[in-house]
């Protein structure tokens, strides 16, 4: 028997726009509360905040994982700054780690060794900090994907999506700058990689390199500069942007999945206080706890094994942290193209996959909400999320994008794939050169087909109900499976979505040749729109459903018996 579509929750309906919901929890804060209320008007702020309602769905907690790992990053980061010394001054190591005794190294690397081996709890905090960074960006990516696939970026939340894209790009910088601070062999190799990216920028590359590194790579200023970027500049901007992000979230109210009782003008869920607060507060400790466990049991970035950075050395398996892996992969599989024009060198082999691809990803992310709105011609506000199957083209595009990213990502680990799975490095490289183009197309087609099949099965359930799993034999010996009608709640969930039709091309001028105020719809736009909605399965009309139901109610349904 096919599983019924999930309809969400029996949680209390709260009309958030209703002004009279009492924040009765506040009374308990009387003492401190009234003190603060008299001075900063706490009650008003709190009543506004505490009356918020937050819908329940696990994927809405992804954003919280991001937020909490950011807080963990701040806490552990402050601990690390107490001992870390951002200096490239060379010294001879005399600390406790014997396998480095007497080697020349930078002060930054020596202090990282000291944090690892001489500061009580230092290694644990270092590992928590690094795991939190990995989790921060991973959860952020997952959060972004959930926003994408559910269409939560649509009007009125486009700006918040843009803030999110900013957060993502800054987080990459935050992660990379932190990763480079210890000045070990691996991070130094990573910096060399970035040095290459900078140099590959046509014409100005070399100047930029000298500006950033204060001379030729590696220079003597970089660690101190990265330190400033890592602990002041980027976290400062991140904090401000996260503030803006959450403020907008509160202002727009959270979206919700469609379901009975859920409309575009209400939010169904638990009130922020006390239920949601308890859940969220508890979840903070869960995230912190998981990070501590990871830091305590899983080794990460063993800088003492990498050794101090030395431009003459390199190690097999030099990879960046995961979020830069796709750029690494693009550079690994890029054919060696280079041209010389008027005495200047144009390193396409580094510039296109490195700088070009990163620019492409963030531009594509930034413009997507606007491009989609242009294609669909949809100008209405959305507070109910899309079920991904109901936007097949978007879902397929998203999966295609993920597949392309994933292929680049795999290419970034081509040597690890080669050694772990006994494959030829060259074969992997040639394969990936093709796969980054072909795999997304296949993914697109397959995903779209799956979405359409799901749409079809939704339509089937609406029209004929769900299979009961009971096979009946009629007196004449015919077999048929009885269908039971689905609940009203499920029927609503399956049919609430809007059925879009492609925008039609219209001339931009009226019959007299006078330009129309809104402008017309160009042919190209109409074409894209048709492509976007092509193949969508129309949801059944009221008449069709009634038709089907009256038809189904005949017990000896010959047509159905033949069909199944």
């Amino acid at each position, binding site marked *: 028997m096919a599983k019924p579509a999930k309809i969400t*929750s*029996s*949680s209390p309906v709260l009309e958030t726009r209703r002004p009279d919901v009492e924040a009765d929890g506040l009374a308990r804060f009387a003492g401190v509360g009234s003190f603060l209320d008299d001075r900063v008007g706490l009650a008003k702020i709190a009543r506004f905040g505490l009356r918020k309602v937050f819908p*329940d769905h*696990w*994927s809405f*907690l*992804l954003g919280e*994982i991001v937020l909490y790992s950011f807080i963990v990053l701040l806490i552990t980061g402050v601990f690390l700054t107490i001992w870390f010394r951002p200096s490239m001054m060379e010294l001879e190591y005399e600390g406790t780690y*014997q*396998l*480095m*005794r*007497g*080697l020349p190294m930078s002060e930054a690397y020596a202090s990282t060794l000291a944090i690892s081996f001489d500061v009580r709890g230092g*290694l644990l905090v270092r590992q928590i900090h*690094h*795991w939190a960074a*990995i*989790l921060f960006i*991973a*959860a952020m990516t997952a959060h972004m994907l959930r926003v994408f696939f559910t269409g939560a970026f649509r009007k009125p939340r486009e700006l918040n999506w843009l803030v999110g894209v900013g957060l993502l790009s800054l987080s990459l910088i935050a992660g990379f700058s932190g990763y480079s601070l210890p000045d070990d*062999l*691996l991070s130094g190799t990573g910096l060399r990689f970035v040095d290459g990216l900078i140099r590959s920028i046509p014409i100005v590359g070399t100047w930029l390199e000298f500006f950033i590194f204060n001379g030729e790579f590696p220079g003597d200023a970089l660690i101190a500069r990265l330190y400033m970027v890592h602990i002041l500049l980027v976290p400062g901007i991140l904090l401000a942007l996260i503030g803006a992000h959450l403020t907008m979230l509160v202002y727009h109210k959270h979206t919700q999945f469609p379901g009975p009782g859920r409309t575009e003008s209400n939010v169904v869920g638990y009130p922020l206080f006390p*239920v949601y607060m308890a859940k969220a507060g508890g*979840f903070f400790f*869960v*995230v912190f706890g*998981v*990070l501590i466990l990871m830091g305590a*049991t*899983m*080794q990460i970035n*063993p800088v003492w094994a*990498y*050794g101090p950075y*030395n431009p003459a*050395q*390199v*190690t*097999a*398996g*030099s*990879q*960046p*942290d*995961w979020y830069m*892996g796709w750029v690494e992969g693009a550079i690994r599989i890029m054919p060696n193209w280079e041209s010389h024009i008027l005495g200047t060198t144009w390193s396409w082999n580094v510039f296109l996959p490195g700088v070009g691809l990163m620019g492409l990803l963030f531009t594509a992310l930034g413009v997507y909400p606007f491009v989609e709105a242009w294609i669909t011609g949809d100008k209405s506000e959305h507070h109910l999320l899309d079920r991904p199957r109901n936007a097949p083209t978007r879902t397929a595009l998203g999966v295609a994008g993920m597949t392309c990213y994933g292929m680049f990502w795999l290419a*970034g680990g*081509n*040597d*690890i794939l*080669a*050694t*772990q799975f006994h*494959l*030829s*490095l*060259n*074969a992997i490289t040639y394969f990936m050169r093709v796969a980054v183009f072909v795999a997304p197309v296949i993914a697109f087609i397959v995903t779209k087909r799956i979405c359409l099949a799901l749409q079809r099965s939704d339509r089937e359930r609406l029209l004929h109900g769900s299979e009961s799993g009971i096979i009946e034999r009629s007196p004449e010996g015919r077999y048929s499976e009885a269908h039971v009608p689905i609940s009203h709640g499920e029927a609503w969930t399956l049919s609430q979505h809007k059925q879009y039709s492609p925008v039609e091309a219209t001339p931009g001028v009226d019959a007299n040749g006078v330009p129309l105020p809104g402008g017309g719809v160009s042919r190209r736009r109409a074409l894209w729109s048709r492509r976007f909605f092509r193949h969508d399965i129309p949801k059944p009309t009221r008449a069709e459903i009634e038709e089907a139901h009256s038809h189904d109610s005949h017990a000896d349904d010959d047509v159905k018996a033949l069909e199944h």
Partner: protein
Amino acid sequence: MRFLSSRRRSRAAKPLLLAFALFVTGALYAGFAPATQVSADAGTSALVAEGKALFQVSCSSCHGLNGEGTTQGPSLVGVGAAAVDFQVATGRMPMAHPGAQAPRKQNTFTEHEIAAMAAFVAALGPGPAIPEPPVYAPGNLDERAIARGGELFRTNCSACHNFEGGGGALPNGKYAPSLRGVEPIHIYEAMRTGPQQMPVFSAGAIPDAEAAAIIAYLEELHAQPSPGFTLGGLGPVSEGFFGWIIGVGGLCLIATWIASRGARAR
């Protein structure tokens, strides 16, 4: 001089000169040939003969009856006893089937048999000898020397073998194997004989003392405790993998659980 020039045309001169030249060549050869050859006593030649017999059974199909090489395998003239000891004791030879690279596997020969084949191959032409323990494991290295061994390892070896000797990929299906658990003597022999893609690091490039420091560093490094699971020791790739699986995956499971709990005491 006048004595020599006056007798130069004597009838005995030619045979005498020939005998003298032979003597000098033989003496020179004895002086420069590897140790196994110098003490070419009855025991060694018996060993060589035994080795030859073994070689002809196990190895000649590829390397030729006298190690001269065939289309299936290279000539072994001048590769030295160390190469045989390394290749056979690590199970690489006899090669089981042709492939990109002979993999390490279980060695089925006894120490004596290996020594015999090594003696036979060494007799084909001079090459690096099997080292004695004081050469590769002198046991008197202080921590600074060992730390310096680490620096040498990172300079000379980590580009192929990875920073902690975890191994790495090379083009066309070849690879530098992991060095964990490799016997010190085999590390030394690998450096001196340069198997396959690996370059030869002769005593001129890395003197014995430095080779011993590299070996000691690897031993020490692999004996270090690690702070938690090493996740395969593959660096950021496995870290990212586990970050996603355990971090994001685990927390999503917990999030699902939290979201599915209603507020009971309402």
